[in-house]
């Protein structure tokens, strides 16, 4: 990964308001792939003509999912004139105050827009409000705020619908007799977790033959997921299926089932598409995965923000469902799925 140093114009530097912030800004950009742009005057009229600086902030940096958001965001930026994306995030999705601080730093730095995923719907609403007051354009990706201001669109997977779809797959596979099911959420209280729970439970309600016998959080930690699944298997040796709401949960559950010698017998359904998850699908340990389109979240998120900044007040943005694909052994090698799993600007999953 190449790192390009961002040059800061004098005017821009003054706007940063001091060396501390300048330091923070430089640190913030290190490790990303920002575009080098010279500042050449501001915009005017209805929309801004000059260069646009957008901060794109995931819930946490690092995870495969957010990496693809980054690729999508940078891809979108590269297709516009004078749009520069600054990518930065906290290291843990639970670090709400860290994200608040980070976003406030970006607001202080005077970026033109924020494209971000809220780690906490209620808390981050305050930041959104503050940014709107200062005239910034905001687009939420993946997770929005509560309340969601009408001028702030959400570019995200419809988690409830996707969760319902995969749970229906499970119900279909288990048939009329149904069976015992375990659920591994990752962070009760977060929007993503709770919407994925909602869709799942909705389908359970319609299918009383599905018996939810255990709910244990993985805390987004694979070792924890492994341990709780081990224990669930002990408590319920006749378990039929597991629904895991994110990557560490799926991988931990898959590991536990594999170790118990129950591969293919205990059916695993889950979310996300880390390489070992996809491999587990190919190996038959995991039956199906919900693949979101994080590339498109980043891509559409940046595009929407640019549209509004360039177009001015008159432009009204709408929320976008970026869709979900159920990945199974049958479709995993198809080109569209491969594009989704390994997105790039050359081969975008759009």
């Amino acid at each position, binding site marked *: 990964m190449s790192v390009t140093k961002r040059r800061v114009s004098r005017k821009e530097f003054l706007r940063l308001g001091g060396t501390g912030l300048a330091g923070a800004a430089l640190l913030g950009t290190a490790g990303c792939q920002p575009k080098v742009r010279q500042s050449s005057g501001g915009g005017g009229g209805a929309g801004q003509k000059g260069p646009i600086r957008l901060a794109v902030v995931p819930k*946490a940096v*690092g995870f495969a999912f957010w990496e693809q958001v980054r690729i999508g965001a940078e891809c979108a930026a590269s297709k516009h004139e004078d749009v520069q994306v600054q990518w930065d995030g906290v290291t843990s999705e639970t670090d709400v105050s860290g994200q608040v601080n980070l976003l406030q730093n970006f607001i202080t730095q005077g970026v033109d827009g924020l494209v971000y995923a809220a780690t906490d719907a209620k808390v981050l609403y305050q930041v959104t409000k503050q940014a709107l007051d200062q005239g910034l354009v905001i687009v939420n990706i993946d997770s929005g705020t509560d309340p969601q201001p009408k001028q702030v669109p959400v570019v995200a997977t419809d988690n409830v619908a996707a969760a319902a779809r995969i749970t229906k797959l499970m119900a279909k596979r288990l048939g009329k007799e149904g069976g015992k099911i375990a659920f591994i959420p990752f962070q009760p209280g977060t929007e993503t977790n709770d919407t994925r729970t909602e869709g799942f439970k909705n389908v359970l309600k319609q299918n009383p033959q599905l018996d939810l016998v255990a709910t244990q959080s993985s805390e987004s*930690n694979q070792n924890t997921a492994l341990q709780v699944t*081990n224990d669930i298997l002990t*408590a319920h040796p006749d378990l039929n299926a597991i629904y895991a709401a994110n990557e560490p949960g799926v991988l*931990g559950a898959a*590991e536990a089932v594999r170790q118990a010698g129950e591969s293919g017998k205990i059916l695993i359904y889950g979310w996300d598409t880390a390489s070992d998850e996809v491999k587990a699908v190919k190996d038959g340990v995991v039956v199906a995965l919900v693949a979101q389109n994080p590339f498109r979240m980043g891509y559409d998120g940046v595009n929407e923000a640019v549209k509004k900044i360039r177009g001015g007040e008159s432009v009204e943005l709408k929320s976008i469902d970026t869709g979900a694909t159920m990945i199974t052994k049958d479709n995993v090698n198809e080109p569209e799925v491969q594009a989704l799993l390994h997105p790039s600007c050359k081969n975008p999953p759009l």
Partner: protein
Amino acid sequence: MSSTATTEERAGGTLRERLSGVISQLAAAGALIVVFVFLSIASPVFLSADNLYNIGVQTSYTAVIAIGVTLVIITAGIDLSVGSVAALSGVVGVVLMAKAGVPVVLAILGGILVGAACGLVNGLLVSVAGLNPFIATLGMLSVARGMVYIPTNAKSVFGVPDSFRLLGQGVIGSIPIPIIVVAVVAVAGYVVLARTKLGRYAYAMGSNREAARLSGIPIRRYLTVVYVISGALAGFGGMIASSQVASGQPNFGIGLELDAIAAAVIGGASLFGGQGTVVGTLIGAFLIALIRNGSVLLDVNIYYQQVIIGVVIWVAVLWDQYRRRRLAVSE
């Protein structure tokens, strides 16, 4: 004055002394037994071989790491960095075997060495630079976590050879390898504490740093070694955890230092130094694991588990203090 203690007195004293040593772990052991009995009744599968196996395996890395932390706590220090160091070591070890093609055993050693190196930095900061152990290891907590995120971008590292799974998942006969590993580390830890100068000096430094120095103990050297051991065991724990999930997890071990410290404290270690045993720490680690395991078997919400563990820490330490005070007063 020539009232030399009679033989009876001496024998009685020794017996009492032995008892008081055992009693110091009774609080934790008692709680362990209570939880064990409760779970045996509450859950039909609790006593199954599979479940006991699981508990053993689940405790393994926490126990290994907690033994190192106990050694540090005995010197009146603290090691907050073990969770981060375990993650760094685990990832480096996995990268070595999965990406660099280093043989598994050497890669595991590599991971342990990384932990030891972090421990060395901690040790030098504490003993030579004179930083407070809390500060020195708090810094390392952040540095090591950052160092594991930088190259991995916080992404898990996959692709380990199957033989690596043996460390965390294998069995010899019917005994899980991670349990054998814990037993070996525990016995070694016990011997170090009870039968080597290092152990003796750890207690002495923790009990009274200045008295130890004036007794000619090379404080800096031994203190540094203590942190190196803690780091190395954190690294080893990280390798075990990586083996259990067959991948390197940059997010592994967040908050693990608290589990390790809790295990040591529940087991009778004093944060003021001079007290702590391997057996006590093992009991503490198993108690925490039992609570976690039982909570899942009974399908208790994970957040309640945290409350329960916190309460257990309070009770164990309060009981321990009460016991010590009584002992001191009755003298």
